[in-house]
């Protein structure tokens, strides 16, 4: 089946419409969004909805506005919020999902029923989930009333309305913090490379880390992104939304882990038992290492869902609660309520960059291994 036969031409002909559609709707539109984000479209309300608006090229000004502009504090808080949200959402889903999978792997009675119960929220819309949990988290409502069922006092925690935040830091310190974190990662990489005897890698990583730390020590502190300190942290109002998101998505990690656990051959467990491993030892040395790739896949899928999450927040806390807002929601409001298209496009592009950091290495590694097998 070599050469350009008629059948091969058919196969290309069949693919062509999809290729064109993806090229336009994904890559073309991304390019267009990036272009729009570098114009001033919508910054002047009079021009925003004009039939033939005057649109000027402004370069990176919209991005600068988002990161340092006086009016865009909301976006900066959202960026911090989405990082915390992603962190706790992933931890919650992985922890609960793994726990449930490990229990179900021990063959309890009625396993199918349990699995159905743990997984059904996956079939719901985030809007449905959000509506239910919004009701449950009302200030004097369901969850806060729960202690009274056991004879306790009702809780008064403002699930979605709290304005408190933990781990606050000054936005001006962001370059410093980022440089330190990246530098630390590089140091760890250097140490690991040194242990495995990869000399070039050690040197490169160590040199980059040293440069970053030098920058952080001498240049970083002098950078002033904002004239006054601006504190951002982990808003406690997000906790309820994280719980609802974990409620909906942990069944997914459970299904992933369960599929992985079922894929571990019984002989392997048998062999470990023969070698005298107890239950804990077997999990530590046999099962968890085999589940590591699944953890990575789950982290990536959950991570990109979390960065894009928007409907759940919209349904639970409404569009105007700045303490729970996320960039994906802000993009929608900025573009389609305030008609500030350029600024909205810039937020969308920042989201895309965040997601691409997670997805591109994953996709390329998956396909590299596949081509290797072929």
């Amino acid at each position, binding site marked *: 089946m070599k050469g350009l036969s008629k059948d091969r031409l058919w196969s290309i002909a069949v693919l062509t419409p999809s290729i064109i559609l993806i090229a336009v*709707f994904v890559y073309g539109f991304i390019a267009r969004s990036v272009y729009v984000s570098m114009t001033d479209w919508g910054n002047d309300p009079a021009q925003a909805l004009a039939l033939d608006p005057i649109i000027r090229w402004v370069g990176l000004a919209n991005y600068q506005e988002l990161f340092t502009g006086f009016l865009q504090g909301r976006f900066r808080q959202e960026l911090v919020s989405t990082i915390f949200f992603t962190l706790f959402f992933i931890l919650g889903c992985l922890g609960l999902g793994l726990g449930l999978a490990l*229990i179900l792997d021990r063959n309890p009675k009625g396993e199918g029923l349990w699995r159905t119960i743990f997984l*059904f929220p996956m*079939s719901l819309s985030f*809007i449905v989930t959000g509506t239910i949990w919004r*009701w449950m988290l009302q200030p*004097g409502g369901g969850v806060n009333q729960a202690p009274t*069922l056991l004879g306790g006092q009702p809780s008064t925690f403002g699930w979605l309305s709290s304005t408190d935040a933990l781990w606050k830091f000054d936005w001006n310190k962001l370059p410093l913090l980022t440089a330190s974190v990246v530098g630390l990662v590089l140091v760890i990489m250097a140490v690991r490379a040194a242990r495995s005897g990869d000399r070039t890698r050690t040197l490169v990583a160590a040199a980059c880390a040293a440069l970053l730390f030098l920058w952080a020590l001498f240049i970083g502190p002098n950078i002033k992104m904002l004239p006054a300190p601006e504190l951002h942290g982990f808003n406690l109002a997000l906790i309820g939304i994280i719980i609802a998101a974990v409620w909906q998505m942990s069944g997914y990690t459970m299904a992933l882990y369960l599929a992985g656990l079922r894929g571990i051959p019984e002989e392997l467990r048998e062999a470990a038992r023969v070698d005298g491993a107890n239950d804990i030892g077997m999990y530590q040395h046999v099962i968890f290492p085999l589940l590591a790739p699944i953890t990575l896949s789950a982290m990536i899928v959950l991570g990109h869902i979390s960065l894009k999450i*928007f409907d759940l927040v919209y349904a639970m806390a409404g569009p105007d609660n700045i303490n729970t807002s996320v960039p994906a929601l802000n993009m929608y409001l900025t573009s389609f309520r305030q008609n500030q298209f350029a600024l909205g496009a810039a937020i969308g592009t920042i989201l895309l960059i965040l997601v691409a950091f997670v997805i591109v290495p994953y996709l390329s590694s998956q396909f590299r291994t596949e081509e290797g097998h072929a």
Partner: protein
Amino acid sequence: MTTTAPANATPSAAPRRAIKPGRVVMYALLILAALFFLVPVYLLFATALKSPDAINLATTWHWPAALNWASFSDAWAKIGGNVLNSLFLAVTATFLSALLGSLNGYALSKWKFRGANTLFALMLFGMFIPYQAVLIPLFQFIKSLGLYGSIWGLILAHVVYGIPITTLIFRNFYADVPDALIEAATIDGAGFWQIYGRVIFPISIPGFVVVIIWQFTQVWNEFLFAATLTNTTSQPVTYALSQLAGGQAVSWNLPMAGAILAALPTLLVYILLGRYFVRGLLAGSVKG
């Protein structure tokens, strides 16, 4: 529910053992977890079935004294039209995506050409992007086609952005079909379409079930496109529900009944065809 039943003759993979503390802890944990997942469902029904004047934050947990089934008809009056919009949208978009995905998957897995994998990876990227990054041009494009506010604009968006996942599922599904089958058909003189019609399509039913369930659920549950590309006549149920729940004036039994109505189709699909649902779920993250 007992954990030991020595007289129980049903064959089981799990070895029967005496009650161990470990088993008790295990069931306790399972029940605890099940409570976490089911308590919201209890509150959902308890609230939906209350009459507006019986809804009181202090008595959230009480089962209604008198069941108020009228909540459902009231909610249907508000969002019934949107449920029908969603039904039309999801069925049409799912049918078109499944067809495209099947043909793409067949072409990509059985007629491999140079660069097919790279092309496929570039396609897959489209499944992960945050749609906020394409939303403004998409909106302009749909508007310039004259499809803004029409359900067909929404269908177009869902079909296009559904291509990656449907292609992925079908490609992995067809990868398990032995190439020898195709070669035998080629020797018999069958071409691209004959092979698809006589060999591939007849064995594709499980693939179609997985894709249809997955795509139906996705399209039904989607919110961002629904909120951006439609107007009041074409809004699907997710958007209508968010408006119903966001309004401060309505009594809470309405959004709760609405949530049940909006959840019912996908929930039924999941309960009846859960096995295939899970397969679609895993296909999104694990390559074949």
